[in-house]
């Protein structure tokens, strides 16, 4: 008989040079990624970036065009989901509409030829675990979205997987339930200690859940790091823009030393940044990221000294704990998230001339030049 996956087996996932072509075009190209055992990993990116394709290749619902996928020490390309020890939760949950909740959860056991009494008992146990035992005789259509999701979870977990794959699991829920289930997923993962791979296009979701965030752009991985690293120190303009919370500025390296890089901005100002392993070369253009919530604003247009930029307030948006101030700096958009206390001490309004300034420590050099083209779905969001 084939080996059944148990929790003791490693749920480390390794993708080596994985590519997937649909017709002539690549959905993903040359992906190399290692997801540690027992971690909560979020694949994050806009629709069409290839994140779902990666998930489906790990699940065994899509075969890579080339490359290898390992789970634990087992090469799994060509193997069935059960042999892989993976279980997938579908975006639509895909609960079988003709079966009761109990029979849905017991489906895996039935397929394995487990006797009726035993599989009912084990399915009931699993339903108790997700607190849905009282609904065991209902049909899926009679359940709310949140309940359906828990049934889908129970149905996946009864396979005792070492990897749980979740395809946009929260996208069908309303805001309130989404936050609630988000918390439940996180604690479930903690409790089970297995690897979770979760596909999402919502960055707050990824940051809140993940030990490891993989930011994707059109078939490639832009950055795979901890949530804190991704949010604080994006490596590319794309990641900075996609994660939101950052201003991306481009200038020319005017002076460079072991520790500091000076950048001349087209608007006349000079920015100072700590030198990192990012490529920086005298006289070459370079992009930097500055966190929106590390900006101080003062009235007046006289930008003097380093790390300052002047412009005209275009819009202010009250967000509760902070105020989002959008500033037009010579045609470009610059955003400062000012704490409500600071803002109301010295309010600015549309049309006011302001100067923004920040500390050199809050500037991050980016590895690529900003093209401005990278999609920023959160440009107008609150983050």
């Amino acid at each position, binding site marked *: 008989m084939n080996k059944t996956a148990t929790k003791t087996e490693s749920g480390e996932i390794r993708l080596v040079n994985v590519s997937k072509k649909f017709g002539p075009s690549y959905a993903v190209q040359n992906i190399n990624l290692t997801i540690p055992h027992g971690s909560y990993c979020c694949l994050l990116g806009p629709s069409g970036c290839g994140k779902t394709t990666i998930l489906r290749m790990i699940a*065994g619902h899509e075969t890579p065009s080339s490359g290898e996928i390992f789970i634990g020490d087992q090469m799994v390309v060509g193997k*069935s*989901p*059960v042999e892989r020890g993976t279980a997938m939760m579908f975006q639509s949950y*895909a609960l079988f509409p*003709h079966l009761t909740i109990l029979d849905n959860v017991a489906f895996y056991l039935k*397929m394995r030829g487990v006797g009726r009494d035993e599989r009912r008992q084990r399915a009931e146990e699993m339903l108790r675990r997700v607190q849905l035992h009282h609904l065991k005789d209902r049909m899926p*259509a009679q359940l709310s979205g949140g309940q359906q999701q828990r049934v889908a979870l129970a*149905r996946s977990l009864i396979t005792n997987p070492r990897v749980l794959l979740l395809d946009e699991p929260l996208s069908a829920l309303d805001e309130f339930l989404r936050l609630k289930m988000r918390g439940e997923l996180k604690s479930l993962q903690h409790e089970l200690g297995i690897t979770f791979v979760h596909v999402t296009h919502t960055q707050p979701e990824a940051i809140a859940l993940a030990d490891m965030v993989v930011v994707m752009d059109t078939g490639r991985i832009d950055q795979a790091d901890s949530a804190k690293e991704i949010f604080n120190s994006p490596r590319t303009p794309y990641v900075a823009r996609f994660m939101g919370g950052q201003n991306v500025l481009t200038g020319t390296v005017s002076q460079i030393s072991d520790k500091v890089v000076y950048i001349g901005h087209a608007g006349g100002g000079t920015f100072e940044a700590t030198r990192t392993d990012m490529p920086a070369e005298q006289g070459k253009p370079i992009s930097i990221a500055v966190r929106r919530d590390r900006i101080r604003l003062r009235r007046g247009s006289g930008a003097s000294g380093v790390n300052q930029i002047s412009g005209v307030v275009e819009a202010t948006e009250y967000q509760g704990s902070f105020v989002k101030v959008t500033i037009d700096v010579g045609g470009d958009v610059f955003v400062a998230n000012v704490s409500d206390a600071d803002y109301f001490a010295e309010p600015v309004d549309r049309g006011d001339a302001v100067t923004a300034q920040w500390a050199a420590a809050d500037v991050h050099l980016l590895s690529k030049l900003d093209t401005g083209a990278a999609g920023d779905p959160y440009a107008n969001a609150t983050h």
Partner: protein
Amino acid sequence: MSSSPSYGPRPWTFYVLAALFTLFVIFLYGPMIGVLILSFQGPSASLVFPLRDPSLMWFDELFNPRRTGDVVGAFYRSLPLAGIVMLLTVLVSVTAGFAFRRRFWGSTAIFYTAIASLIVPGLVLSIGILVTFRYLGQSASWYTSGLGAHLSWSLPFGLLIMFAVLGRLNPSYEEAAYDLGATKWQTVKEVVVPIVFPGMIAVALFGFTLSYDEFPRSWLTVGSKNTLPLEIWTMTTNVTSPALYALGTVTTVVSFIVIAIALSSIILIQRKRSS
């Protein structure tokens, strides 16, 4: 100025369309009810209203023929024929429907070839089949040439229904079954067939009724022994008694019973799923 709210009168089109629909209903059911009533005509044997001395004598005449044709024999040919057409239509439509879920080389051509038989005139097809059978030295009968002629009519309908049904079948159900360790066969048996079962009943219903009351494609293809629609047609030319109406009533009732069985089983399944 009136102070009461105005919710607007119904537009004049409402009354026009309502009148049209009423006409349609009268036109559809009026004659059927007329035939139903006249099938209880008394011994006067009058073919027109009024109904005098209602009796069941013409039903008796139907099953113990003295002057009518072989109605019972025709019924026992039509019923199994419709049954076989129904089974084959379900089998072929469902499997073909699944084949067409994936695009394959020549799929469009095959689809249009299959659908084209909907627009071929039935009488012409009937003649063509007879001529071909003669040429091949075969004699026509209801279970060979007749069956083929009926399938040429029911299969395209069945296929189109299955396209609609399978078009709404979310592929994630099959993927979920695979994910949970089901084999291909288990997936079909435990997941796909139960989900598309109402659609299969619809196909069965179409297959049965299309065959049961098919005239043009039966005309020359069923051989020397008539099916029911042909028998009725023959009777209109040489039987001038209310037995004709009694036959109309019986065949209509059989059709309604089949439809009722099919629809109630669909409703039962739906209710089981959503109540």
